[in-house]
C-alpha cells in the first residue's frame, strides 16, 4: 500500500483510494502515517511522532472512520448479538450510500447524505462481549486502542452496558448502548459519553400497569420471581411500584439465582400462595425456562381467588418468544419496538433488513440500527467527531422517522423518550415471526419521568470526556 502511495496519484483517483483504505480496514494511525509519507513524498521513517497531537481520542484524519460494534457472539445471547450485528452492518451500508438507504429516507433530520459521515467512508470492527463485564471491556478497549474505533455500539445486558459505558467515558469515546433495560444505565450509572435509545424498567412498568389493570382488573395479587441481580431488582421495583399504584397487591417477591436453569422449585409454591398473577422478572434463557416451567405446572389453566390465573413477562424479546415457543400464548409484556408497527420508519427498516437477511429484525437490532444512525447524524450536525460536540448535538435532540415515533433524547440523563409497546404472545401465529402481537402503543407522555425520580437518583452525568 505504501508503495502505491509513493507514486504521485492523480486526484481523480481519490475515491478508489478511499475504497481501498476502508476495505483494508486502515486504522487511524496507519492513515496518519501514510498521509504524512505521501505528503513529503519520501519514505523516510518518521520515528518518534507521538500521536498525542490529536484533539480527541481516535480522531479520524484519513478518508475513513471506524465504528466499534461490541455484541455478544458467544454464550447464551449469541443469537441476539448476531441480530444486532446484522443491523449494524446494514446501518453502515446505508450511511455509505449502499443498499436502499433504509431509514435515511424517513429520518426527520436530513443531515446524512449517504456519503459516509462528514464525508468519510464508514468502516467497522467487531468484538465479542461474551455477556461478561470484563470481556466486554476488553473487547471495547481493543477496538479503541488497536483499531482506532471512535464509537462503541451494541450489547445485550445492562451489566455490560454500564461497564462499557464507564470505559468509554474514561477513554473519551461515545458509547451508544444497545439492549439495556435496567434503570441504572441512565440512572445511578449514567455517564456524559453514554447514550441509551432503548427503554427501561420504569417505562415498562408505566406502560404495562394500565393495560394489566384494564385486562385483569384492579384487585389482583401478584407473585414476583426475579433474577437475582441488578437488572432484575430494578425491574421488580418498577413493576411493583406501578401495579401497586393501581391497586394491586404484591404477595411475595422471590429472588432466583442467575445460574438457575430449572425454576420448578420456585414455581411450585406459587399456586398455593394466594396469588393470581405471576410476574417473571427474567430475561433470555432464564425467562424461557421459567415460563416453560410455569406452563408445565398448568398455571394458566388454574383459577385462583375466583379469577383466571395470569402470567406477565415485563420485558419481551423476539428471540425469547421464539425460544419459549407455544408457551407465550396470551402472556403480556412490553417491548421497545416491533417490526409489525405501521409507521414509515419501521416499514423502511423492516423492508431493507428483511430483503437483505430474509427475516424481520428484532427490537434489539432496531435499537442498534437507530443508534448508529443517530450517532452519524449527530456528527454531521455537530460538524465534528469530537465526543463533546457529538454529545451536545444528541442532547435534547427531537427526531422522528426511525420507527419509534416522535422521540426525544433527553439531555439531563441521555435517555430516549418515545412510545412503548405492550405486546401479547400471539394465540394464532401465522408464521415464525408474528409470535407477538401489539396490544397497545403507550404514548410517550405516559412513560416520562423526572430525571430526579428516586429510582434514577444517585448518579451524575459528569463532564463529557474527549480523551487525549
Amino acid at each position, binding site marked *: 500500500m505504501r508503495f502505491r502511495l509513493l507514486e504521485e496519484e492523480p486526484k481523480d483517483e481519490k475515491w478508489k483510494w478511499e475504497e481501498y483504505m476502508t476495505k483494508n480496514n486502515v486504522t487511524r494511525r496507519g492513515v496518519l502515517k501514510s498521509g504524512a509519507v505521501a505528503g513529503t513524498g519520501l519514505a523516510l521513517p518518521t520515528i518518534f511522532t507521538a500521536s498525542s497531537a490529536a484533539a480527541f481520542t481516535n480522531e479520524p484524519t484519513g478518508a475513513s472512520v471506524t465504528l466499534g460494534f461490541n455484541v455478544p457472539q458467544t454464550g447464551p445471547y449469541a443469537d441476539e448479538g448476531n441480530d444486532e450485528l446484522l443491523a449494524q452492518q446494514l446501518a453502515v451500508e446505508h450511511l455509505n450510500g449502499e443498499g436502499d438507504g433504509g431509514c435515511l429516507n424517513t429520518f426527520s433530520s436530513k443531515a446524512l447524505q449517504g456519503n459516509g459521515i462528514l464525508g468519510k467512508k464508514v468502516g467497522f470492527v467487531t468484538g465479542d462481549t461474551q455477556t461478561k463485564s470484563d470481556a466486554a471491556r476488553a473487547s471495547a478497549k481493543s477496538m479503541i486502542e488497536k483499531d482506532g474505533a471512535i464509537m462503541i455500539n451494541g450489547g445485550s445486558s445492562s451489566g455490560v452496558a454500564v461497564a462499557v459505558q464507564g470505559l468509554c467515558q474514561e477513554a473519551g469515546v461515545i458509547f451508544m448502548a444497545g439492549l439495556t433495560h435496567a434503570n441504572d444505565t441512565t440512572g445511578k450509572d449514567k455517564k456524559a459519553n453514554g447514550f441509551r435509545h432503548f427503554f427501561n424498567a420504569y417505562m415498562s412498568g408505566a406502560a404495562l400497569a394500565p393495560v394489566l389493570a384494564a385486562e385483569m382488573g384492579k384487585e389482583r395479587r401478584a407473585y414476583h420471581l426475579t433474577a437475582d441481580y441488578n437488572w432484575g431488582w430494578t425491574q421488580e421495583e418498577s413493576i411493583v411500584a406501578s401495579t401497586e399504584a393501581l391497586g394491586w397487591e404484591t404477595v411475595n417477591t422471590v429472588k432466583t439465582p*442467575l445460574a438457575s436453569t430449572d425454576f420448578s422449585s420456585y414455581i411450585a409454591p406459587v399456586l398455593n400462595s394466594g396469588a393470581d398473577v405471576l410476574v417473571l422478572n427474567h430475561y433470555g434463557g432464564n425467562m424461557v425456562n421459567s415460563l416453560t416451567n410455569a406452563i408445565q405446572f398448568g398455571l394458566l389453566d388454574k383459577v385462583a381467588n375466583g379469577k383466571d390465573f395470569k402470567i406477565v413477562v415485563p420485558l419481551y424479546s423476539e428471540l425469547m418468544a421464539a425460544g419459549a415457543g407455544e408457551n407465550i400464548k396470551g402472556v403480556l409484556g412490553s417491548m421497545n419496538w416491533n417490526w409489525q408497527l405501521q409507521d414509515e420508519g419501521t416499514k423502511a427498516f423492516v423492508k431493507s433488513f428483511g430483503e437483505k437477511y430474509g427475516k424481520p429484525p428484532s427490537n434489539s437490532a432496531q435499537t442498534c440500527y437507530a443508534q448508529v444512525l443517530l450517532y452519524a447524524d449527530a456528527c454531521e450536525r455537530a460538524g465534528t467527531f469530537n465526543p463533546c460536540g457529538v454529545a451536545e448535538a444528541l442532547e435534547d435532540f427531537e427526531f422522528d422517522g426511525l420507527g419509534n415515533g416522535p422521540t426525544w433524547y433527553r439531555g439531563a440523563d441521555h435517555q430516549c423518550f418515545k412510545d412503548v409497546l405492550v405486546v401479547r404472545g400471539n394465540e394464532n401465529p401465522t408464521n415464525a415471526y408474528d409470535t407477538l402481537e401489539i396490544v397497545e402503543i403507550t404514548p410517550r407522555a405516559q412513560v416520562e419521568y423526572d430525571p430526579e425520580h428516586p429510582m434514577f437518583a444517585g448518579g451524575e452525568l459528569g463532564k463529557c470526556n474527549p480523551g487525549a
Partner: protein
Amino acid sequence: MLGLNKKDTSLLIVVALLTLLAPFILNPFPEGSAMAQFNAGYPDLMQRFVIFGIFAIGFNILFGLTGYLSFGHAAFLGVGSYSAVWMFKLLSYNVIPAIALSVVVAGLFSLLIGFISLRRSGIYFSILTLAFAQMSFALAYSVLSNPKFNLTNGETGLQVYADDPQILQGANAPDLPHLFGLPMRATYTMDVGAWSFDFNAGYYLCAVIMMAVFYLSIRIFRSPFGMMLRAVKSNQQRMNYTGLNSKPYTLAAFVISGMYAGLAGGLMAAMDPLAGAERMQWTASGEVVLMTILGGTGTLIGPVLGAGFIKYFENIFSKINDNVLHSWFAFLPDGLEDAVVFVIHPFIGKGWHLTLGILFMLVVIYLPGGLVEGGQRLLKRFKRKKKDTDDAPSGKTEPAE
C-alpha cells in the same frame, strides 16, 4: 547471578527481554496491512498477557510443585480486584496501596480456604476449592451487592463513583489509576515507517512486577522448600512416615499462589478500575488450570506461554469477522473467495471457541508436556539437523583417510 544457576539466569534474561521488548515483538506487521489483524501489541492485551502470566505462575507453584489441583483460584483473583477497587474508592487512585492490599487480602482469604481445603487431597481437595470459589462468586453476584450492604456492586462490577470519599486523592492527581501521578493509561506511541509501537505505563508496571515474581518463582522452585513441595507430589505418604508434616508446606504453597492470584487481580483493577464478579466464576478458575496445563505443568516458563496463548485467541480470533476475511481473500476470484470465506468462517469471530477447543485437544494429544515440550522438540530437531550438517563434511573426509 542473583543466586541463580547459569541456566535459570539465562531463562530470566530471556523472559526479561521478551517482556520489555513486547511492544515490538507483538506488533510484527505494519499497520494497515492485512496481517495487522494479528498484531497483539496494544496496551490492553499486553497487560492481560503479563497479568494472566502472573496468575498462572502462581498457580503453577501450587499445582506444578505439589500436584494439588485447585479449581477455585479465580476467587483469589476476584478478591484481589475487589480490594484494589475499594482502595481506589476509599483512599486514592494511587495503585501502590491498592496492589498491596489486594495481595494481603487474597493471602488471608487463601489462608482460610487453604486451611480448610487442605484437610483433603486429590479430587476431594479440588471440589472443596471449587465449592468455596463458586460460593464466593454467587454471593458477590447477588447477596453482597444488596443496597444495604453493597460490597461488590454485583453484575455491574465494583467501580469508583464521583461521590466516593477518596480521602487521599490530591487535587491535581489524575482521575484514573496512577503511580504517583503517572497514569496507567499513559501510552507513548512510536511510529517507525509503517509500523507503530505502543509503550504503555501500565504495561511496564505489570511487566516489572511479573519479572520480580517470576524471579521469586524460580527461587522457590530451586529452594529446599520447593524440594519439599515436590516430595509432596511424588509421595506424600512416605514423607509423612519419615516424620515430616507436609501440611505447613502445602498450605504455604497454597497461600503463596493465592497471593500471586491476588496480585494479578489487583493489577487488573489497577489497569482498569472495575471489578466484575465473573472473575470468580469456575470458568475463570478453569481457565488458569488450562493455561498451566497447556503451557506445561511444573515448568517455569510454561504457564506464561499458556496464558499468552489463550488470551491471544480470546482477543484476536474473536475479532476477525467475515468482512476482514473478504478483504484478505479479495485477490481470489469471486466464487473461490466466497468458498474460502465459507470454510474459514466457522473458526473465527463467533467461532473462536471452536478453534480454541480444537487446539486444546491437539496440544494435549501431541504434546503431553504442553507448549514447552513443543518448544523443546523443535529445539532438539533444530540441533540435530545442525549436528547432521556438521557431521556431513567429516563423513566425506573419512573415506579419503
